[in-house]
């Protein structure tokens, strides 16, 4: 028995090809919708999107969610989604379900051959674009909305309790829907930062009692997230709002903008504001957990909207980890974030 055990322990479990097939099957590489399309990601990755408020962070999360809940194909039309479930933990408590529905409707509309211009013109006129869509797509819309699970937390203890009971919840939903949870979105991971920092460590009568200080709370949170990832591999995308004000001269940028704006200029300016505005405030244990980092900034340029009505401000997106040398630009419209070439 023991001999078998030792022999079994040193014998080969699987070859390299089998292992690769298994891993790629369980954790397939996926591409997030633009503007996050530059880096391929897989389940088990943790992406952190930092930005000031407002800078379209929640919109990027919503777009990732829409991409995940849409089916790949439905009644002969190719939607290009993943057809999986999404969990959204809202710590900021400012999620607007109407915006999710709007972005989802636009994707469905576009997949069915609708044109962006028609959509925006109709919206601008105040006309009812929704009427024809309700007739054809209500079933698809409700199917997609049912794949989206949402919870909001008003304080750290609620967030901790949610993560503790998440495993059972996930198992229940996976069994009910027959689909996997592909995406876990956390909106504003730094929401309770100040409250946790202000929680003083009182003199505890019991030596080994864990406290609700910033360190203690984040150790428990990261531990629970790691456990969850090992049992249910999924992609975690968390947005993070900056909490420190901008001490560099924000108003100086228009002056520099009169001259040619090449990428080097932009990047050096972004790097300066990074130092001040995006000072890292999350505890080291969370920073070590994050595998990819993105920064969003508002630029002062704007571009005319496609319906010619008014100018839309441009947002800049840069990948810090892995460090890419490109800055993507996008604008926010009714239909979501659209890349600007």
């Amino acid at each position: 028995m023991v001999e078998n055990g030792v022999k079994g322990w040193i014998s080969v479990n699987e070859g390299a090809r089998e292992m690769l097939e298994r891993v790629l099957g369980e954790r397939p590489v996926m591409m997030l919708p633009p503007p996050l399309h530059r880096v391929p990601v897989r389940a088990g990755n943790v992406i952190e999107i930092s930005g000031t408020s407002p800078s379209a962070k929640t919109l990027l999360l919503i777009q990732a969610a829409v991409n995940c809940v849409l089916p790949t194909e439905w009644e002969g039309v190719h939607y290009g989604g993943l057809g999986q479930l999404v969990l959204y933990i809202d710590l900021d408590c400012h999620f607007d379900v109407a915006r999710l529905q709007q972005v989802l409707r636009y994707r469905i509309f576009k997949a069915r051959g609708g044109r962006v211009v028609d959509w925006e013109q109709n919206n601008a006129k105040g006309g009812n674009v929704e009427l024809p869509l309700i007739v054809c797509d209500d079933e698809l819309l409700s199917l997609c909305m049912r794949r989206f699970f949402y919870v909001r937390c008003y304080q750290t203890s609620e967030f901790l309790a949610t993560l503790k009971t998440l495993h059972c919840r996930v198992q229940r939903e996976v069994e009910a829907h027959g689909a996997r949870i592909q995406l876990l979105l956390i909106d504003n991971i730094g929401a309770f930062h100040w409250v946790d920092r202000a929680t003083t460590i009182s003199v505890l009568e019991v030596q080994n009692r864990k406290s609700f200080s910033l360190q203690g709370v984040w150790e428990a949170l990261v531990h629970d997230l790691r456990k969850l990832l090992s049992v249910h591999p999924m992609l975690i995308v968390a947005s993070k709002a900056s909490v420190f004000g901008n001490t560099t001269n924000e108003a100086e940028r228009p002056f520099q903008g009169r001259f040619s704006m090449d990428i080097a200029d932009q990047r050096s300016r972004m790097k300066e504001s990074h130092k001040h505005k995006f000072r890292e405030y999350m505890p080291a244990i969370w920073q070590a957990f994050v595998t990819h980092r993105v920064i969003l900034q508002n630029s002062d340029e704007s571009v005319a909207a496609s319906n010619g009505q008014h100018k839309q401000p441009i947002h800049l997106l840069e990948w810090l980890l892995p460090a890419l040398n490109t800055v993507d630009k996008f604008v926010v419209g009714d239909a979501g974030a659209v890349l600007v070439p």
Partner: protein
Amino acid sequence: MPPLKSLGPGFPVIDSDFQSFCASLGILSVEDFLLHDLDALAAQADLRPSPERLKQGLALVFTIIESMHQPWRNGMEILEDVQKNKRILSTGCEGVDSLLKGGLHEGHVTELTGPSSSGKTQFCLMASAEVAYKHKGLVTYIDTGNSFSAKRIAHSIGQVDKKVLQTVMNRIICYSVYDIFTLLAVLHELEFRLKSQICERDGIARLLVIDSISSLITPILGSNGPQGRGLMTSTGWLLKKVADEYGTAVLVSNHTVSGNHGTTKPALGESWKVIPHTRLLLTQVGGSNCSISIIKHPSLENATSFSLLNHSQFCITYKV
């Protein structure tokens, strides 16, 4: 955090054995369980005599933890709830209503920022009058600077029957609050009252106005210490909870401070920016006109649309 033994009478499985097991691991209350790994605790229980009873206790604690967070909902449930219960309340000022494509959203916190005497209090009073009269809703007005004026509200309502005016004015309750702790007490009391009153959706419009919240928060912000900002964050989240759980539209006003190079920016700093759902900025553009623009909104484009308003009357002259 109440100690574990307070659960004792209701749940016989939380007996002294279980309590001493928990105390040996440094767990004295249910909240302490949140910082521990329940599976690791179950493994520790296996090393003790009578592990089954201990595991039953842990299972009970697990169900208690499940009730400690908000329930999970799917997208359709949220959508139906919003479509049925969360309305858009007009503010009585057509310029603002057209800018916000309707008005104030129930369930959202809307912030109005502007320099002093730009009309913030006037707007708050007008919105209160509109909700109390047109929407027949209840208004809680938290006044921090003695600027509440019943006369101006009556003036906004216009010429109506005396009895009607009395009913409308009875729908508006005003609190005078001068520090953040009183504000938190008032909000907690309001939350408690709403929780006990609302068994099912009663369809009554609700508005909560705080004029101005910045005068309560600025004194506590102080240096880089976390206490002031922690208090501000807790207040903000409490406002969001009252807004969303009880279908209340929350309107707060904020003042402006000077930014770099002579620009003005809203007060209360970076951490405040995440709290309101919608942020509006009033800027004076000469004479008695001011322009109102959106700084942040969940679904509308910001910073490029604005309305022009006549200060004294908050009249209709607007352009986009």
